[in-house]
């Protein structure tokens, strides 16, 4: 049992190395920089490679090349840096490479970017959104496994709080079961046979003229549908008899969960629902909310992004109301005044009362 | 009839030829000439007259990789119409 007192950034890197990640490339940007620092220090000790790329464009490109050889490889940044990587994300996903991306976002405003496939074309990343460092250590290892299993990128949606808070965590390797050999990986052994490999995103094949994008992309679409069936994850408490459900994601959800437990202890029939996968969104968990629920309140610290997915899930079966809003600190890193349990308590009490007619 | 010595020869895959004619001026002994006939693609293609030296210039400059080059162990004498 390895228990260490570490910052989230370090825990994430330790977990990646435990999962067998042996290549990382990145570019410094707050609050992601410490992930790169930790990778630079620890990756060589683990027999891997960490490169300080000349920009985010090259960082994702280097990871792309490493992935093509069959290695477990990752990159990361914050939302702004991920913006630069979008074209490559689209190509990498549609070339079916198992990239893992560490997004230490500046708050919750990158939900759309992460879940809508911010680049061109029809593609999705699986997005795991940990509530705290303990979950992050698990998610990082799960990410490498899911990425290899589905041959699809997986993003860890973290944030400043996650990266820069220190806790004592168990750093143990989690075994997820066997995976098939990566016979698609480049090695040169098929050179000259007429069957050499071409890792690409548009259905190019050796010996064939032109490209076959439509069949190729349709097959990818079927894979995304399969992932949507099999990989949604969520966390829920006190739903069975709830009059009101509040939903939140990421580290913000830890504050919300704490307040919900307080309110429950005082008799409010309030429930809590947190998507663990932002994509595929756990729509069924919202559909399965009991008919007693008068309203679903979405507490997210942005202009309203996850609320779209909540509304799409329930399709009018219950009203959906935005309870959060834009809230950030002076540097724009997402630690805003709304990230406060007393403030959240006031907001939830008011929402609960308005929806249920209960006295505050 | 007269005798032409030749030190090499080529094979030409005429169906690959796109009629670019870069081989014609490349040949240092001027033994390549474009056909009147056309291949499946609709292009004229090179024909070989006696006198090839097996130097490979045509092979080097052909963008469609039509030529293979052979060199005779001993120079051959070829009878041609005068």
């Amino acid at each position: 049992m390895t228990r260490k007192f570490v910052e989230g950034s370090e825990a994430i890197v330790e977990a990646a190395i435990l999962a067998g990640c042996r290549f990382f490339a990145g570019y410094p940007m707050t609050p992601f920089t410490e992930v790169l620092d930790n990778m630079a220090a620890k990756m060589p000790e683990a027999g891997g490679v960490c490169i300080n790329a000349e920009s985010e464009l090259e960082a994702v490109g280097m990871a792309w090349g490493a992935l093509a050889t069959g290695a477990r490889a990752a990159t990361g940044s914050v939302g702004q840096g991920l913006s630069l990587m979008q074209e490559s994300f689209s190509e990498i996903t549609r070339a079916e490479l198992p990239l893992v991306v560490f997004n230490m976002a500046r708050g919750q405003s990158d939900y759309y970017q992460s879940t809508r496939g911010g680049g061109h074309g029809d593609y999705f990343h699986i997005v795991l959104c940990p509530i705290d460092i303990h979950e992050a250590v698990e998610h990082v290892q799960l990410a490498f496994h899911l990425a290899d299993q589905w041959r699809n990128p997986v993003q860890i949606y973290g944030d400043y709080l996650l990266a820069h808070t220190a806790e004592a965590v168990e750093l143990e390797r989690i075994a997820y079961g066997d995976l098939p050999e990566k016979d698609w990986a480049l090695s040169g052994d098929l050179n000259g046979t007429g069957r050499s490999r071409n890792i690409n995103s548009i259905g190019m094949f050796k010996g064939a003229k032109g490209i076959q994008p439509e069949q190729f992309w349709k097959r990818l679409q079927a894979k995304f549908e399969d992932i949507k069936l099999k990989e949604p994850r969520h966390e829920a408490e006190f739903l069975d008899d709830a009059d009101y459900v509040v939903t939140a994601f990421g580290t913000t959800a830890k504050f919300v969960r704490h307040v919900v437990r307080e309110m429950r202890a005082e008799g409010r029939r309030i429930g809590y629902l947190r998507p663990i996968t932002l994509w595929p969104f756990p729509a069924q968990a919202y559909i399965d909310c009991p008919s007693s629920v008068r309203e679903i309140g979405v507490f997210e610290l942005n202009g309203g992004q996850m609320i779209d997915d909540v509304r799409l899930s329930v399709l009018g079966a219950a009203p959906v109301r935005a309870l959060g809003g834009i809230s950030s600190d002076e540097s724009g890193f997402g630690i805003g005044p709304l990230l406060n349990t007393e403030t959240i308590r006031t907001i939830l009490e008011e929402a609960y009362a308005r929806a249920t007619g209960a006295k505050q | 009839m007269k005798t032409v010595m030749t030190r090499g020869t080529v094979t030409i895959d005429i169906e690959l030829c796109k009629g670019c004619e870069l081989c014609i001026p490349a040949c240092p002994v001027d033994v390549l000439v474009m056909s009147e006939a056309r291949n499946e693609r609709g292009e004229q293609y090179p024909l070989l007259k006696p006198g090839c030296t097996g130097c490979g210039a045509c092979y080097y400059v052909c963008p469609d990789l039509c030529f293979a080059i052979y060199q005779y162990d001993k120079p051959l004498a070829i009878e041609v119409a005068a």
Partner: protein
Amino acid sequence: MTLIDTDRPPEAGAKEWRARKPALLIDGDHDLCPGCGEPIALRSLLEVIEELGWADRALASVGIGCYTALTGILDVDMVQALHGRAPSLATGIKRMRPDRLVFTLQGDGDMVNEGLQEVLHSAARGEAITCVLLNNGVFGETGGHMTATTVLGQRTKNTLSGRDAKYHGHPISMTDLLTPLGGVSYVARGTVTTARDVEKTRRYLRRALETQIAGEGFSFVEILTMCPTGWFIPVTEGPGYLNETIAPVFRTGEFKVEGLVQ
């Protein structure tokens, strides 16, 4: 007129001196224009890889341009990169597989326009990869537009009266930019207009790959190729145009060998 049969090889008394195509090219035609220099360059590269004995250990990171159409017959394990991005992918490949011969195949629009930052940094870091630049001074695949290597006076779709320094700036020479960088071991430029030029280019490619095999840092070969379509000239005038208009601006030869400026 007496003609020699060119359908079949001679039955006896001769040896095959040059095979029609390298083993690393799948048989069949390609869709590039008549008179295009790019297949000649690619064929030379693959032959050299075979001669060096690295055919089953070569990996390619390919850019986007007309030459992308050649990937259907390029019988080498490869990854298709985005425009300009081949060097970063090649870096990732080589770092994970230092035991492989890793090369990029890129056009001038790809490397010198979109991907200039990328190739310079890979070179400065001394990544043990070989970048191959196919330079015809136009964006061929999109129809013949100006690139960073279009020479002054050259007509392209967006410089119809010829590139004018006042409006369109000056061309960039990759050999000038790469040669001074510390991580760079080998820099050369060749052409494919005549048999002699092709043979020189083959030698440059061989020395570049040998640099990588010896683990001596970044190697680079730029190959000037004919593009009669993009140059708006008849096919037969391609080599002449290249030698008269482009080669005088982009000198051929070896600029850096074993880390020493020549």
